[in-house]
């Protein structure tokens, strides 16, 4: 169907059906995440039309829902990761040479390698039963939350843009600029406790918002594609911070290494549980941000407009919503959230600005948003999962010698499977969504429209 035909059809329908048609159009554009604001967040990427939802049993809903696909994608990735760990293990390789003489050796070694690695992953991310004291035992969990903080913030930014139909690849650059501004306020201004941190947070938010706002503005005014813009601005941001770090204003006195002075104590997030843990107040900020985004998307007029723009810009325009304003607004908010991730880095864990301050959080955030089905709490949960991977990966590496790259492989596989729900369905013999109803035979992937 050509675009023109599509528009025509949609327009003629919109006169007659109003709200329901907008949703249908959304589904046909491949953006399954659209839902009326009254529907709770958890159900948003589920079935769109209430009358159909009623006709399904609970089991069918679970079987065909995207949440199940997400969970299964994680399980499959962990399984494949386990195979990879097993087959790169030295003992497995050694015992494979006499597989037919004594197969139990190799199978046993493979099982040991994979299960040891995953046990260490768990031990490093949730609970360490070998810890000397209680605080050492729960330390891994706080570590997971610490690492999850920037992932959640940046993930929310990406998810929000997804919902408005924008594929925001630029979280990396937005984190960097947010962190740069926040760090600069943090180390060059010397202000009283409270005020200083507040200004650091605001600076981070402004930095990210500006960087992403440029994209929204260019997209709205000139029609430039946001993927290109955000990717290019990532490079600009990285090279900008590299340059700034060669200037004395950003370097430590008496040193020419590209590393900033440490932020003042007054500019740092206070630790949540005292010296023994690295978890800081940034995590609380991340929770607040999640609540805010949930409210914004599901309860506010702005959120409604954003989703309308994301579902179908033409229909939104016809309905009297300013698409230009929508793009700029969503990018500014997305950038502000990524800026918060930058603040969590410089004012939370790192305490200094370097060119690697954003790690790969900006890109992981895309995965987090995808896995979280672009819903605020989904993103929150996905952020926790990825935080656990990163935190546990450290222990896995030191305790079992498993390469930390395995964690990367598992993360990448998750994206792969999420991007291909039919693959996951066929592996687990799940019914096709809609197959039971005999209606629409293809279910669009979460946020697939944006991709």
């Amino acid at each position: 169907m050509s675009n023109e035909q599509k528009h025509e059809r949609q327009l003629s329908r919109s006169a007659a059906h109003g709200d329901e048609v907008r949703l249908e159009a959304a589904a046909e554009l491949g953006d399954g995440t659209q839902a009326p604001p009254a529907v709770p967040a958890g159900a948003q990427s589920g079935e769109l039309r209430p009358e159909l939802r009623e006709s399904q049993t609970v089991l069918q809903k679970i079987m065909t829902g995207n949440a199940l696909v997400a969970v299964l994608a994680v399980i499959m990735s962990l399984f494949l990761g386990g195979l990879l760990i097993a087959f790169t293990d030295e003992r497995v390789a050694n015992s494979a040479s006499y597989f037919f003489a004594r197969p139990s050796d190799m199978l046993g070694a493979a099982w040991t390698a994979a299960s040891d690695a995953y046990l260490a992953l768990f031990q490093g991310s949730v609970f360490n039963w070998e810890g000397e004291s209680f605080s050492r035992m729960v330390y891994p969990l706080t570590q997971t939350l610490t690492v999850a903080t920037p992932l959640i913030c940046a993930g929310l930014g990406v998810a929000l843009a997804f919902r408005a139909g924008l594929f925001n690849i630029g979280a990396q650059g937005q984190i960097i600029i947010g962190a740069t501004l926040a760090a600069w306020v943090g180390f060059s201004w010397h202000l009283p406790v409270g005020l200083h941190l507040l200004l650091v947070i605001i600076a981070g938010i402004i930095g990210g918002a500006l960087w992403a706002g440029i994209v929204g503005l260019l997209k709205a005014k000139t029609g430039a594609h946001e993927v290109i813009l955000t990717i290019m601005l990532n490079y600009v941001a990285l090279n900008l911070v590299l340059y700034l770090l060669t200037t004395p204003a950003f370097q430590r006195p008496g040193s020419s290494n590209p590393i900033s002075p440490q932020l003042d104590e007054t500019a740092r997030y206070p630790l949540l549980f005292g010296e023994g843990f690295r978890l800081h107040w940034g995590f609380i900020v991340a929770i607040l941000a999640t609540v805010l985004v949930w409210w914004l998307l599901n309860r506010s007029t702005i959120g409604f407009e954003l989703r309308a723009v994301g579902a179908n810009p033409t229909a939104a325009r016809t309905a009297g919503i300013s698409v230009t304003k929508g793009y700029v607004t969503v990018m500014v908010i997305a950038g502000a959230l990524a800026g918060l991730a930058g603040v969590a880095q410089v004012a939370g864990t790192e305490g200094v600005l370097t060119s690697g301050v954003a790690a790969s959080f900006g890109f992981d955030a895309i995965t987090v948003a995808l896995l979280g089905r672009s819903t605020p709490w989904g993103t929150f949960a996905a952020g926790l999962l990825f935080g656990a991977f990163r935190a546990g990966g450290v222990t896995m590496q030191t305790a079992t010698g498993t390469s930390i790259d395995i964690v990367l492989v598992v993360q990448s596989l998750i994206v792969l499977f999420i991007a291909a729900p039919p693959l996951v369905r066929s592996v687990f013999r799940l019914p096709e969504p809609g197959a039971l109803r005999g209606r629409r035979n293809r279910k669009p992937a979460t946020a697939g429209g944006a991709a």
Partner: protein
Amino acid sequence: MKKSLRAMKRSTGLSAAVLGASALVLAGCGAPPEEGGSSAAPEESDYMGCIVSDSGGFDDRSFNQSSYEGLKAAEADLGIQIQQAESQAETDFTPNVDSMVQSGCDLVLTVGFLLGDVTKEAAAANPDTNFAIVDYQDPEFTDNVKPIVYDTAQAAFMAGYLAAGVSETGKVATYGGLNIPTVTIFMDGFADGVAYYNEQKGENVELLGWNKESQNGTFNGGFENQGKGKTDTQNFINEGADVIMPVAGPVGLGTMDAVIEANADRPAEEQVKVIWVDSDGYETTGKGEEYILTSVMKLMGQAVEEVIASDVEGNFSGEPYIGTLENGGVALAPFHDLDASVPDELKTELEEIKASIISGEIKVESEASPK
């Protein structure tokens, strides 16, 4: 279409299975070891030496790799246990160092200035664990941190003199990965060496890619993009440079590509030469070795092994190890295939220069030199 696809899938699946099975059959025919025997290892020390890389990883063909090799050598020679943690990003530094300390390491070796703050804090918080850090020095370090630093400019000075001496075109070049002290110290020394040659011989050999006065020059923005290294090198060759020193880790391999291409249609006496850095490039680059004139080596592995050996013996000190020409921490590699292209007179002069640098007669100064 769908059907044929499925058929194809099946057939490829089948052939893959056959292949896999035959590989297994072939690979799996060995004899099993005796049950419960032969695992008694020779007696090992319970000393635990640990290393945390920076975000470059242990396969960076640069300081992470050399330091790791030093630790491996210590494992082999001293019978110690080792543990390693590779950092994917800067956020991993603190967790990695912490996890090393928690797992009972006697000495934690960290690599690079980026780990400086983390090492400083961990050392202050864990006075019973010893630390060593490569390429970074901080006056605020506690006594349980040993900085391992290098006055690389000394060896680079000799390389600069050599480059100026063998250049036919009167132009030599260098470029770096990033404008950071551990890179610019090579370039400063190189520049001084060229200047010293000009002063001694009354020549006017020109250095491209680095200005010591303004501390600025050609940098390709990182240590990954070999394509950029190749382009930069081609530019230098087009401008007439015939000795090139890349100070950018693996990016230097891009230089090798450019030089191999450029030399393909040049007579022997006009060939472009490369000066490698960190390790002896003749042994490590794997391509174009015949064009490597020499290498400005930082012998990190050796220093790491020494530091560990002295700690095993209980002689650890926080006194910085400074690699110099005198203690062999930095050196100029042999000329290998290009030995014949270096006149004997130049070789003798280089030996004299080395002696004068060691005696302090020639002062090689760089802003980036360890103090």
